Structure formats: structure tokens, C-alpha cells
């Protein structure tokens, strides 16, 4: 916790999908860090590459897709080039996962107890009884009422919200350093979403696990994350402390995005809208990927791709608006 090495460091990550009509770049040189115990929100529209970033970190890109460049470091150890066997140990043991649909993470044929105890015992050298006690403790912590009795139930005995709590318990069973949560609340009802976010946030804070929270919902990010990373067309647009990015976004895309979200406190006549749509991966424009939709587009944006530029308070933004003339030619 005291070292300067970030828990997770992603450098220039490139993920490609070969297709009949050429190579599609789903992620294009994405870089970011997650510090110990930090909650990093990852937002973007569908197709922006946020889920693929998560899958790439845990080595679960579906073939024929593949990591075509870049590095992923976990506590100073490179993990993007591990063998499948060693990667499997990293998954679950050091990186826990929570997906959108709780049913994909739970085996319907086994009781919750079977699944939790198995996970605990593959990662910790303890007996059946001790593992069971630990499992009940975990279920208690994620807010399952009467955990001692319900632990022997099957997944289908639980409601959607309760299942997602079980999945969170399962993700944390091996005491991982990092939890990757991919749209953990999207399939749930509004009134249950807030409960799940609270549980995820509290239990990870208690155990010192960092969280990479992938979601399209800015509201969830605002309430949960310490920092937020905004992806656009497979590239990082902006990254910074969540309050700064939400209240004073620097990238024109983030600004547009924030303006387009209706809220319950303000009732403007029209929402700010970004013209057009995010380009398909086979038609990403030259230069900055956002340039055809950008209200502040400059000639340079059409030819040169902006890299992430450091800003105040540890923020970074990939936009030529913030490149000081003379520092970089252009």
C-alpha cells in the first residue's frame, strides 16, 4: 500500500479483431493506472471499448480478437503475456470479476455454498469448515439476510439483486487486489441498483480492493468512483478525479456527454446534444477520432491524433485545445 508502483498499470494497450474486410482496432493505445484501493470508473458509449479493456486485462478477449500491443502490469508484474494456466490463477485469485448478468457468473447446478467454498479453498489453504464460516461471513457482508440458512440454496432461489450480491461475494472470496465490475447494475431495477453499488463500494473499501467499474451510467460513476476514465472509439479521451471531470470536463466529448444526460434537478428545455454518432471501428476518421462531431475542431485535429496530455490535479486529456503552441510543433 505504500509503494509508488500502481496496483494496475495499462500501457498503450491495443486490441484488434481481424475481419474479412480488414483489421478492426477495438482499443487503440489505451493507457491508465489504478492505485491500491482506488475506484476507477470507466465510461463510454457502446462500442467505445470499455468492456474490451476489462476483458483484455484479465486475458479473456474472445478469439479471433487479440492483444496486438501494449502491456498490462499488476503490482509490477507483467500479466498480458502470461500462459493461460498462470493467467487463470491471476483471475479469481488476484483479480475478481462481476458481470452484468449474475447468472453467467453462477453455476445453476451447484449451491451457493459449493461455489463459494470451492473458490475460497482453491486460493487459501484452509479446511472445509473454516471455508464455510468465511463464506457465511462474506454473504453477511454483502447483505444477504439469514446467510447461514441461505448459503445452501441454489442460484435460482435468489432474486436478481440478491444474485448480484452473491456474485460480489464470490468475486471477493479469494481476497483479490482488484475487482473488475462490468456493468454490475445494468440488469437490475433502479431501486436495487443503488443497493448493489453501495455493497460493492463498502466491501471493497473494507478489504482494500481496488475497483475498475465499467459502466455507461455517469450517475453510478459520480457516486462511486475516485477517478473516471472516458473512452471514445477505442481511445482514451480524458481521465481525472471524478468531481473535476464531471463538473468541469475538459475534452469536448466529455462536455457534450455530460450535457446530454438529463437530471432530476434541472429541467432545461433541450438537452445538449452531440451531433452524429460514434464512428464504427472500420470508419474511424484520421486525426482525432472525435473531430467530425467536435464543436471546437481545428485543422490540426483532422490530421494529427492527440496523445494524452497531462493537466492540473493529475488530469489527462487527449485534445489539441490543451497543447500549448511551441511545446509541440503544430
Amino acid at each position: 500500500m505504500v509503494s509508488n508502483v500502481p496496483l494496475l498499470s495499462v500501457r498503450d494497450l491495443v486490441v484488434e479483431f481481424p475481419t474479412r474486410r480488414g483489421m478492426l482496432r477495438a482499443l487503440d493505445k489505451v493507457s491508465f493506472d489504478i492505485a491500491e484501493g482506488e475506484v476507477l470508473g470507466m465510461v463510454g458509449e457502446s462500442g467505445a471499448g470499455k468492456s474490451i479493456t476489462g476483458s483484455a486485462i484479465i486475458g479473456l478477449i474472445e478469439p479471433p480478437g487479440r492483444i496486438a500491443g501494449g502491456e498490462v502490469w499488476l503490482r509490477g508484474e507483467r500479466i498480458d503475456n502470461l500462459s493461460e494456466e498462470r493467467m487463470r490463477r491471476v483471475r479469481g485469485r488476484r483479480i475478481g470479476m462481476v458481470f452484468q448478468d449474475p447468472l453467467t457468473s453462477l453455476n445453476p447446478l451447484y449451491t451457493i455454498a459449493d461455489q463459494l467454498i470451492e473458490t475460497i479453498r482453491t486460493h487459501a489453504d484452509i479446511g472445509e469448515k473454516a471455508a464455510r464460516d468465511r463464506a457465511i461471513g462474506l454473504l453477511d457482508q454483502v447483505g444477504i439476510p439469514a446467510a447461514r440458512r441461505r448459503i445452501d440454496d441454489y442460484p435460482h432461489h435468489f432474486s436478481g439483486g440478491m444474485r448480484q450480491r452473491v456474485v460480489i461475494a464470490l468475486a471477493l472470496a479469494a481476497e483479490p487486489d482488484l475487482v473488475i465490475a462490468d456493468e454490475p447494475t445494468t440488469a437490475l431495477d433502479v431501486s436495487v441498483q443503488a443497493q448493489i453499488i453501495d455493497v460493492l463500494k463498502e466491501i471493497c473499501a473494507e478489504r482494500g480492493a481496488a475497483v475498475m467499474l465499467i459502466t455507461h451510467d455517469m450517475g453510478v460513476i459520480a457516486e462511486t468512483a475516485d477517478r473516471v476514465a472516458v473512452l471514445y472509439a477505442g481511445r482514451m479521451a480524458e481521465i481525472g478525479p471524478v468531481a473535476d471531470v464531471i463538473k468541469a470536463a475538459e475534452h469536448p466529448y466529455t462536455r457534450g456527454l455530460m450535457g446530454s444526460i438529463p437530471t432530476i434537478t434541472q429541467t432545461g428545455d433541450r438537452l445538449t446534444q452531440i451531433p452524429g454518432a460514434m464512428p464504427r471501428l472500420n470508419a474511424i476518421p484520421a486525426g482525432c477520432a472525435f473531430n467530425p462531431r467536435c464543436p471546437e475542431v481545428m485543422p490540426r485535429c483532422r490530421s494529427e491524433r492527440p496523445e494524452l496530455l497531462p493537466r492540473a490535479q493529475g488530469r489527462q486529456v487527449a485534445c489539441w485545445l490543451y497543447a500549448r503552441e511551441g511545446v509541440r510543433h503544430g
Partner: protein
Amino acid sequence: MGDALVRVEGLTRYFDVSKPWLNRVIEREPKAWLTAVADVSFEIRRGETFALVGESGSGKSTIAKMIVGLLPPSEGRIVFDGQPMAGTAGAAMRSLRRRFQMIFQDPFASLNPRWRVGDIIAEPIRTFGLASGAEVRREVGRLLEVVGLGAADAAKFPHEFSGGQRQRIAIARALSSKPEFIVCDEPTSALDVSVQAQILNLMRDLQDEFGLTYLFISHDLSVVRHMANRIGVLYLGRLAEVAEGKRLFREPRHPYSRMLLDAVPDLEMSGRRRKRVEGEIPNPIDPPPGCAFHPRCPLVADRCRREIPAPVPVADGMAACFAVEEGRG
């Protein structure tokens, strides 16, 4: 805001969710019924946007389907511009149908993948015989431009468009019969936020331009806040509260409305601390007795566990809650 264009009275819908006949006989089980919508009444005034909000199992989509005639009601009636829908048939029904339309949730399922966009938009025009020959073509081109696409897009197939563009096509189809009333069933919940903003803005522009009346169905309170004049809050098939939009968000009366508002994430980061919402929605096949919300309600009293609360008129709407009725709320 004038008279009522659509009036819904005591609308109720049951679904038979029994096991197959043979299983029932062998396992000696009676028929099982799910009450998706129970005794729902409201009216939609000409030119307004009336929203129905609710979570899963609230019956909001079932109400939408009954209003456009996709599902017959089990009880109650729907009156469109003074004309009851049940019992209307033939040519009268045809001319009634032309006046309402529907926009669906999933733009990937709501357009026939084998049809050209032009044919999709022209379907209502042809069905109602509103134009023929080259006129159809011109009208389709005009509609495509109205929704922000180009007349040349008529020759393309749906798969050539993004989700937002497809929803524009679906809107153009809905407009093509020149309706007065459009039922919008979660029209933006499958879209990304930046695209959602485009579609919501478009829908409001079209409402102003053509004087449309909307029934807007959504689970997203912020979207409803942005779109609706009046709002009905549904819980497990019953209306909990009906209110003017502004008032509902300022001072919700029904405890469920309050809970829903509390569950909305705080995007402004104003430091508003949400109250944690307790419990989950019960199974609609086996709802709690009395007020369906009572197991989660902070204001629960003995009476709530036994009786179903009747709607109580409040300033600009109604609330179905004993706490409100008794002045405890």
C-alpha cells in the same frame, strides 16, 4: 392542455401463468393467474406528455400494449377521443387506428431486417391508403428529412444504420400515418446517453411541430423528468401516484415515489446523501396482501397490511396511500 384525448378507466389485465394442463392435473395445482395491471385509471390530455414510470413488473408495458390494441384488457375500458376502443370495428376502427401509433424500445427488433427503410416507413401509408405511387416516395423522403435523415436513406436496409438512426426511422414510421397520439415504450433505454439526448430532443421538436400527445413509458426518472408534463408512478400493476411533473420531483407524496427519487444517483455531486432503499420488488404472481408496497414502506401501519388503499385526490393528481389519506405522509 385541453380535454382528455385518452381516458383509461379501471384497466385490469390478468395473465394465465398456469403450468400445462397435464401437470396441473397430476400435481393437483389450481390455475395460476398473474395480475399485471390492476384497476388503473388515468387520462391523457391533448397535447401533453403523460409518463408512466415503474420498475420491472410494474405493468407499464402491459398498459401501453392494451392502449394500442396489442392486448385486450381483462377488465376496464380505454376511450380514445370519446370513442371506446372495445366494440369499435371495421372502418371505424381503421380510422381510429390511424390516429395513434407506437414507438418501441429496441430499434434492432422494431424494424424488419429484410425490408428497405422506405418500405418500412411506407407501411402505415400503404395500409391506410393515404397515398399511392410516386406520392409515397415523396412522403417517405419528407419524413426521413423530418427525423434528421436523408431521402436517399429510403433505399437502404436497417442494418446499415446505428441504433440512434434506427430509432429515427421508427419515429418516421410512427409519424407516417399522421397520428395525434404516440405511445413511446422506453424509446431511449436501449440507446447511449448522447444518442438518447438527440432522440429526446427530436421527440420534443416533433411534439411542438405536429401537436402530438405522448404516452411516455420509462423506468428512468431523469428522462421522465425531462419529457413529461404529468407522471403516473406504477408499482406492481397499480398506480401509486399521479402528479404534475414538477410537483412530483419537488414533493413526492407516495412513499414509493420518494423511494424511487432517492434511488436516482446524484450526478451533480451536490453531496445529497441517498437514503438506502430497502428490499426488492415482490414476485407479481404472489404479491403481498393489502398495499403491495407495505413490506418496503417506512410508513407502514396495520391497515396497510390488510386493505388495498384507494386513490386519494391530492392537489394536482392522486396518491393511493393510507399514510397520505390519514395525513401521516
